[in-house]
């Protein structure tokens, strides 16, 4: 019988070699990344991709071979994701993130940050007042496990000791730092994710976070240890509370976008807010890492109140300048 008596046969015979070439290049890329391609092959890729796309359009119009159309669809999809996928260098990306993207994302959320901070302060002040009036409130705010003996029944001497305790041999500094970092990061990510549920749970988390700090301070203040306790808490607390505030702000922005999307569709608004929030959150994890180091190492190694307080002030200044100092726009 006559070879290639169908148009679709000739169509396939003419182009099959190109398809197979594209397929083999793609298989290599998917295994080993774009670096496995030589320069010529990199240049060849988009050309082959467009050929495959046009083959697909053509095949849909003239060929009734489902196997062929299915193959071309899968081939084009794979090629599409390579040609239009992300391929920027990781180091460059990282530098760009810290130089431009992160501060810009944080600045864009200034309203949410303010709300988040106010909620936390309100929680803190409220708890401080309540515990100062009636120490029993302390138990409502601080779980037993976390207090570990630091409650209204403790002696002043004991409380003073906890502020200046060196880590014991059992509790190595690095373990403590690792624990604090992972614990806090998880809480921050949680605060962000909870924002999706229309902001309220995040607001609750912020207030509660403030309450815990307020209750602790009130306890120490009642024994005349207010300044010392502030130094103990704020040496890392500035960084940590700021990070949690930002996480809450990112959560609020997502929740707000879901609840009040404005002129866009709810889905689009949520996606925009989610991505911007994620940018903030990636940085928050870094901040919490710094906070974990400060809490795990610096607080144990530095015992002087003045130094602790000046580190707290310095970190507040540094973060503030880093985020909110006006800067040039990112070069395109």
């Amino acid at each position, binding site marked *: 019988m006559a070879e290639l*008596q169908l148009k679709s046969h000739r169509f396939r015979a003419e182009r099959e070699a190109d398809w*197979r070439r594209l397929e083999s290049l793609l298989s290599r890329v998917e295994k080993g990344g774009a670096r496995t391609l030589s320069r010529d092959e990199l240049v060849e890729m988009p050309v082959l991709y467009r050929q495959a796309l046009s083959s697909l359009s053509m095949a849909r119009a003239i060929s009734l*071979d489902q196997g062929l159309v299915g193959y071309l669809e899968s081939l084009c999809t794979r090629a599409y*994701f390579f040609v239009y996928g992300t391929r920027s260098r990781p180091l460059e990306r990282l530098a760009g993130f810290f130089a431009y993207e992160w501060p810009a994302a944080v600045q864009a959320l200034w309203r949410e940050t303010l709300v988040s901070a106010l909620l936390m302060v309100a929680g803190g002040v409220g708890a401080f007042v309540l515990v100062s009036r009636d120490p029993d409130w302390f138990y409502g705010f601080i779980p037993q496990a976390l207090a570990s003996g630091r409650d209204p029944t403790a002696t002043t001497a004991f409380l003073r000791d906890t502020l200046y305790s060196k880590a014991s041999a059992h509790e190595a500094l690095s373990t403590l730092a690792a624990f604090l970092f992972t614990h806090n990061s998880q809480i921050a990510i949680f605060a962000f994710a909870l924002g999706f549920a229309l902001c309220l749970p995040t607001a609750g988390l912020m207030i509660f976070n403030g309450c815990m700090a307020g209750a602790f301070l009130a306890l120490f203040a009642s024994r005349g240890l207010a300044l010392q306790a502030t130094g103990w808490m704020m040496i890392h607390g500035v960084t940590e509370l700021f990070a949690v505030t930002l996480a809450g702000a990112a959560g609020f922005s997502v929740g707000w976008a879901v609840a009040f999307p404005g002129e866009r569709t709810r889905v689009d608004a949520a*996606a925009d807010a989610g*991505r911007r929030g*994620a940018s903030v959150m990636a940085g928050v994890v870094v901040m919490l890492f710094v906070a974990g180091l400060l809490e795990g190492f610096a607080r144990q190694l530095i015992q002087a109140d003045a130094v602790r307080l000046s580190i707290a002030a310095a970190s507040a200044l540094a973060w503030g300048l880093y985020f909110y100092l006006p800067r040039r726009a990112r070069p395109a």
Partner: protein
Amino acid sequence: MTDAAAPRRPPRPARPPRPLDEGWREFVTPEGVDLRLKIASFGERCGAFILDGLIMLGVLIAITLLLLVLQLRANFTYSSEAAQVTWLLGFFLLRNFYFIGFEMRPGAATPGKRAMGLRVVTRDGGRLTANAVFARNAMRELEVFLPASFLFATGLGVDAGLVVLGAIWSGVFVLFPLFNRDRLRLGDLAAGTMVVKAPRRVLRPDLARDGPALVGGLAFTEAQLDAYGVKELHVLEEVLRKADRRTVAEVSTRIRGKIGWEAPLEVSDMAFLGAYYAGLRARLESRLLFGHRRADKFDRP
């Protein structure tokens, strides 16, 4: 044309433009070609997630065992603090960065997703950014770990009521993908992504050319070839590719009956179907070139 004696069917009402089938989604490239992606089903995604969970569990167990072995070799002093740090950080990194790390690679899929033939794409067809990947995975806290924490929570009286309410409230997020067309989970919604089925497919031989045993001289009349349309052709293609003997025999009998085939010589079912497929495709494709696409057997030939 099929049968001149048959009463003419009243003209069929014009079809509405065919909506995309259930589970498929339009995905137009900048070149203007619709790639038609298949949305991953809820079951496939659950499967992928379970696989990933098992892999993570396996890694954690492997780390623990490795540390134990290292500790047993007394010379190598692997202090318990170091072990603790490794474990804490290992768990944290796995829980948060296993998904993010894999989905940021060119394949945009975790090992579990890859095993199920899935990948993550943006809904608008743009680049999948690191932010989107981070956002979609950070939301997992809400979808998996929050309900899990309610699952393990205990309480009495009012507390128990609160736990139940919390479980219901967070359960909404778990089942979220079941209630939208694109099977989006919360993270997909917050990141503008979706998960699609993107299996690798191989180019299979053209059945009309290299199909099973094309016997020369097996000719069909035009009337016989006009019995079916594109839809039936595609079914026939599937039958031939699967080559399940019983199905082939059944289909062959049906077609022989329908077109009134009287065998001049005995041919096997497979050869008959192969030849009929080639003939039908040649007929339909040549009609297609003249701008007539016969959707199925009910369509006017």
